[in-house]
């Protein structure tokens, strides 16, 4: 069940309004993405929790509509 890249970006921007976000479609199939997200929301937050925040922003789409999303999360330097 693919998800258009624009929808993914929009969901991430809504969840992390301050963030620098880059999304790549790794396989060109709207189903395997990589997202780099740099947001102050991640400052001092353990990595598992950072990814959980991203999944929460995707409101259950991860693992359903969205099969693969490689995540790189960090706080601004």
């Amino acid at each position, binding site marked *: 069940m693919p998800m258009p890249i624009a929808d993914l970006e929009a969901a991430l921007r809504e969840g992390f309004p301050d963030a620098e976000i880059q999304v790549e479609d790794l396989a060109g199939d709207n189903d395997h993405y990589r997202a780099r997200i740099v947001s102050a929301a991640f400052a001092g937050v353990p990595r598992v929790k950072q*990814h959980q925040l991203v999944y929460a922003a995707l409101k259950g789409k991860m693992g359903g509509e969205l099969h693969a999303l490689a995540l790189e999360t960090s706080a601004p330097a």
Partner: protein
Amino acid sequence: MSDAATTDPVHDFIAKAVSEHPVVLFMKGVPDQPRCGFSSQVVQILDQLGVDFVGVDVLQSEPLREGIKRFSDWPTIPQLYVKGEFVGGCDIVREMFQTGELQGFLEQQGVAAQ
């Protein structure tokens, strides 16, 4: 979460698995034959580090496949547990491996290869 009392048999199975085995990988397929590239990557990392681990194939049971996602509050497979704690999925494990953090963590937990 993991320490809540429950009557959910899937939850109990997972809680028991991660408390009885120091390193557990919930994955698609079995360690000798992973059925997903992400599960395969984590198996390769653990093998390369020579870590003894138990693989649990979530494809054998739909309730387990859904149950582990709830148990960890994590929507994807694979999921690595060390000493009962959720360490992460494929990205986190790979990142920790690449920075050398994983080796240190496993040593600290007393589960690194001898």
